[in-house]
């Protein structure tokens, strides 16, 4: 370090690497079995490594929206990858423009911090920041993927790939696995390109590819052997190696944060709750072959969106609403009672852990837009929103599902008095570390 470096007080900087859906428990095993020696070295040489909770519902779009706003879904307004507008009734895909709270990078921009953000979920279309923002996988056209727009040219020159093609997994798992490695390596390459080039106080790159890998290969991973098991493990060797290369680029006093937004477990069965609602007479369709909830009949009393968000078809709120407000509370109680007792017809097992009324778990400004009931199954049962299923439960093609309790957080510093219970606490942690917590 030169003379000038020692005279001036260094500006605080923080770099964040998001590893989507990587479980804390999984990393413990990989550090032990030698797959991730660098991460082990990081953790062993001080700093902070912990398990943390995700969000409800446990979906990447909701979890990262919570990370970037410090609010739960009732405070930021992103409730899933699909949402409904109640009147006129319409399904839509929530995007960055639907985010109703200030994001971390907007906040930091206001505080004159320069930011670089790459590939974080729910950042499309890219909003203006003091710095650069490259949108995540809801972007289909690389030309529209970045703020400032001209960054897209650079991305094209670098052959950047926004996301792996999940359809490929159904065509050929071999090809999909190859593509995942390619996308991952490209991601780190492009990240490094910008790391060297950009000026920043806050840097974040998101690795979505671990989530994709886990969704399609968790079963193979858990089997403990075989080609895809070995590839699964090798994926994390690559990540460990990339983390090592990346950390060598960092300044000694920079803060490094690595985290995931949820854990993963084996998806034993998918549970089609709309089928149950239909069987019980709560949900009705006018046509024999409904495509989605938009085809629901006005006689319906309740319907569900993935995962386990149950809405009462309330009069004066929903376009086709028919449940009188005076029946709302009674119906919610009735549904809670019944849903908790749903059994797997094949095994007789009750698999719903909990059913919450929204006000029991949320207190944000937009709580009126949250589902009326939130159904929480045990790990291993994935609640889906399909409307055209003939069975209540069934093994699906996708073998990995999210877990609430098994996300992780690593920081190359001690946390001190700061406590992190869930991903929601990361917002405050970051603005504290950057010393811009005076709102």
């Amino acid at each position, binding site marked *: 370090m030169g003379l000038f470096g020692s005279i001036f007080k260094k500006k605080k900087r923080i770099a964040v690497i998001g590893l989507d859906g990587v479980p804390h428990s999984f990393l413990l095993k990989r550090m032990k079995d030698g797959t991730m020696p660098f991460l082990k070295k990081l953790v062993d040489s001080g700093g902070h490594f912990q398990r943390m909770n995700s969000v409800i519902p446990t*979906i990447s779009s909701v979890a990262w929206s919570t990370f970037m706003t410090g609010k739960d879904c009732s405070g930021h*307004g992103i409730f*899933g*990858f*699909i949402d409904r*507008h109640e009147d*006129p009734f319409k399904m839509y*895909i929530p*995007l960055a*423009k639907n985010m*109703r709270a200030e994001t971390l990078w907007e906040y930091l921009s206001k505080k004159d911090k320069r930011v670089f953000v790459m590939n974080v979920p729910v950042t*499309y*279309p890219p909003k203006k920041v003091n710095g650069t923002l490259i949108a995540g*996988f*809801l972007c*289909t*056209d690389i030309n529209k993927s970045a703020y400032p727009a001209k960054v897209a040219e650079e991305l094209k020159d670098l052959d950047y790939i926004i*996301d792996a*093609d*999940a*359809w490929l*997994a*159904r065509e050929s798992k071999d090809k999909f696995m190859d593509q995942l490695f390619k996308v991952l390596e490209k991601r780190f390459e492009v990240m490094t390109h910008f790391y060297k080039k950009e000026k920043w106080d806050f840097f974040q790159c998101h690795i979505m590819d671990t989530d*994709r890998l886990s*969704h399609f290969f968790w079963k193979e991973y858990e089997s403990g052997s075989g080609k895809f098991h070995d590839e699964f493990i090798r994926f994390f060797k690559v990540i460990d190696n990339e983390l090592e290369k990346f950390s060598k680029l960092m300044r000694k006093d920079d803060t490094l944060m690595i985290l995931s937004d949820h854990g993963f477990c084996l998806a034993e069965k998918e549970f089609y709750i709309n089928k149950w609602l239909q069987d019980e007479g709560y949900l009705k369709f006018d046509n024999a072959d409904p495509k989605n909830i938009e085809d629901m009949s006005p006689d319906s009393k309740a319907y569900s969106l*993935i995962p386990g968000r149950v809405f009462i078809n309330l009069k004066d709120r929903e376009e086709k609403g028919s449940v009188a407000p005076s029946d709302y509370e009674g119906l919610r109680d009735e549904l809670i009672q019944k849903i908790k007792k749903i059994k797997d017809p094949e095994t007789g097992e009750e698999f719903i852990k909990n059913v919450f009324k929204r006000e029991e778990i949320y207190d944000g*400004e*937009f709580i*009126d837009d949250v589902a009326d009931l939130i159904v929480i199954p045990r790990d291993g049962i*994935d609640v*889906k*929103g399909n409307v055209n299923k003939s069975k209540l439960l069934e093994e*699906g*093609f*996708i073998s990995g599902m999210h877990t609430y309790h098994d996300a992780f957080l690593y920081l190359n510093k001690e946390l001190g008095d700061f406590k992190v219970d869930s991903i929601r606490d990361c917002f405050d942690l970051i603005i504290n570390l950057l010393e811009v917590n005076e709102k």
Partner: protein
Amino acid sequence: MPKKGLTVWFTGLSAAGKTTIALAVEKILQERGIKVERLDGDTVRQSLTKDLGFSKEDRDKNISRVSFVAKLLTRNNVIVLASFISPYKEERSKAKETIGSFIEVYVHATVEECTKRDPKGLYKKAIAGEIPHFTGVSDPYEEPEHADLVCHTVTESEEESVQKVIQFLEDNNYIEKAGEEVYSDEEREKVQKRLEDLGYL
């Protein structure tokens, strides 16, 4: 759907153009499917505050009742367009305090211009001494110093003023921009398919 509730408070002299602007804004918001409610001095005084006159005390009561209603609507994510002469700074800041999510729009036109416009013949009567407590003639109007927006209805067209208000609501994220479809049909299909392939739909 508005993203969050808000009261847009139009203040200014009688005949300055408050109601005209509010009506046009209301129409645009309704067309966009946004929940909107108008509270207007003239109509409110025929119902909610029928019992009140125009003394300072009664004006205060008028505004505090109106603010109460605006607060309830705003809390329920409605965009409230309130047009009231509301000549006193104090009453406006009280309204703001009560309602919370609140912006002040000063609809500005000079007394001379308003007297010329005089659509209801009120200025004529006031100048002749037939209406006591008439703002701008026999009662003061305290101009807002820090209005969030000023519509100069003498120099701007009605359309320009209305556009200003809509623009403000869009820029500050109270409502979504019109026609801001992010995806083309083709792109939407692509994203939908991707989410389906991932089992997210």
